[in-house]
């Protein structure tokens, strides 16, 4: 009992006592940083979808020039995408630095200060990873670069949520608690989405093009033949425009796993929507958001199929990356909002005035 109380006291401090006053400028700045980060992920998707990542061989300079002074005459082909990616990343780095300093100076919550610092460190590491991937010509670093991009977007969006009017000023008596089982379910589905994004990033950074060119079957079968003879035959018939490396059995299996995990995620989000309707209410906006999340996953699966049907057209494959990021984000935001609502109802029954 004592331990439970102490735990509750800790949570109470975390969520209530260190609340700050709503600062609209800070909130909208966090939103701006999040939107720009989302666009940067899209631009990064275009770079890798087109295999343009190594078109500027040096870093932090570009073609020997200061990054911000690369003459326009060089902004052609892959250079346009890669260099624009670098410039937008610099803008995000700048915005994140301002955001971290702003949070430190103006937000009264200590944990938000450190969240700002963590976000700043993440953007520094992310920039270094991107640069080292180029300088060290190490494709594996590209996978970590892609993974951290997703986590960074989640961090910035979480900051936007924590600085929002809703987070800081919601009246406790208006909230409906979200059962722990439902919250855990969403957490597991969200983790599964992150794993799926990692599988996708690994596929993307193999630079092997499409490992399986057909859907819903795979090389005409429910489970493709991955014997050396079969893989050799697949490679004979692949006519990838970029003349990519031959595919391997591992890459074929990885895409099959990607397909199966997609199915699991779809079932997971559909279950979330039905559970939310049952446990909360059909009109509760978390239920509506769960349906939106389901729609997002359906769109994402459609984009995955379109990626195959269009032989990995760069714009489609990039949209697949972007909607993947939104799918992860939706899960995280749903879980955070549910946790916040639950904590409000459990620990502040007297209402808003007690919270600040």
């Amino acid at each position, binding site marked *: 009992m004592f331990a439970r109380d102490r735990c509750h006291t800790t949570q109470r401090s975390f969520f209530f006592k260190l609340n700050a006053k709503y600062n609209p400028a800070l909130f909208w700045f966090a939103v701006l940083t999040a939107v720009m980060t989302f666009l940067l992920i899209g631009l990064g998707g275009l770079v890798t979808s087109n295999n343009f*990542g190594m*078109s500027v061989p040096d870093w932090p300079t570009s073609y020997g020039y200061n990054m911000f002074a690369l003459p326009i005459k060089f902004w052609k082909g892959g*250079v346009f995408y890669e260099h624009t990616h670098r410039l937008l990343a610099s803008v995000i780095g700048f915005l994140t630095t301002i955001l971290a300093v702003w949070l430190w100076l103006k937000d009264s919550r200590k944990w938000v200060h450190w969240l700002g610092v963590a976000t700043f460190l993440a953007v520094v590491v992310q920039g270094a990873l991107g640069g080292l991937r180029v300088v060290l010509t190490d494709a594996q670093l590209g996978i970590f670069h892609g993974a951290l991009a997703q986590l960074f977007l989640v961090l910035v969006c979480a900051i936007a949520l924590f600085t929002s009017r809703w987070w800081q000023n919601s009246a406790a008596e208006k909230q409906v608690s979200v059962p722990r089982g439902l919250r855990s379910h969403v957490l597991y589905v969200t983790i599964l989405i992150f794993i799926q994004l990692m599988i996708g990033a690994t596929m993307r950074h193999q630079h092997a093009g499409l490992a399986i060119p057909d859907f819903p079957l795979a090389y005409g079968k429910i489970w493709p033949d991955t014997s050396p003879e079969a893989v050799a035959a697949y490679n004979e018939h692949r006519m990838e425009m970029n003349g990519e490396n031959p595919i391997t059995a591992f890459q074929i299996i990885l895409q099959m796993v990607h397909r199966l995990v997609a199915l699991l995620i779809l079932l997971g989000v559909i279950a979330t929507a039905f559970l939310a309707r049952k446990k909360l209410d059909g009109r509760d906006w978390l239920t509506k958001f769960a349906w939106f999340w389901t729609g997002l996953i359906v769109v994402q699966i459609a984009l995955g199929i379109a990626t195959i049907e269009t032989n990995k057209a760069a714009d489609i494959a990039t949209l697949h990356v972007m909607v993947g990021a939104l799918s992860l984000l939706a899960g995280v935001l749903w879980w955070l909002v549910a946790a916040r609502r639950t904590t409000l109802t459990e620990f502040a029954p007297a209402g808003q005035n007690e919270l600040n």
Partner: protein
Amino acid sequence: MKKSLLLLSFGIFSALQLANAGDITGAVTLKGTPPAEADIGPKMTADSPDCAVMYAGGKFPTTHFYVVGAKGELADVVVTLKGGDFKSTGASAAPALLDQKGCLYVPTIFAVQTGQKIIVKNSDPCVHNVHAKATVEGNPESNQLQMPGGADLTFTFDKPEAFLKFQCDVHSWMGAWVTVVDNPYYAVTDADGKFTIKNVPPGKYTLQVAHRKLGTQTAGIEVKDTGAATQDFTFTMK
């Protein structure tokens, strides 16, 4: 005087060696119909108009995965000899030339020895990056910029590696594949699907043919003290 005698002896020894060496010749054919090559034009036009203008007639290049003659003569097959006590003479061999012309690599498939220089030229009026995507330990992966009219770039690789890819990431369709071998006995089939490996010392060897898409085949071959040896190969589309 002593020096002259030494040189004379070396010359006679080399001549005797060559007299005892034979040529390995053969031809490689493809049975079956390969898939149609991909048209590079749309991607070139969309991504790099500066490359597209070099094809003013609108006749854009295609990929070159299968270069096949009317009777199935298969070009761009790398032929290597294994099983001999050979050493690379790459350090003293003439450099191989890889040009960038019309936003394509010329040639697409070639072979060199370990330690042999590969000179990469840029004959195009646009910038390229030359990205050597080596995967065997001991062969460095490198990525260098080459401006139009810029100085030639030089690459060497110390370990044997099959189909090491040169890639331009500015123009992502541009790829060339070099096979690095550790002896001077190799060839690449010509447009008629034919190859010749010259001056092979007498002995029993394994002859290997490798096509980037079709895989490899091997055959035992014996080069006798006098005369040449012949071995043909046939790939069949699966």
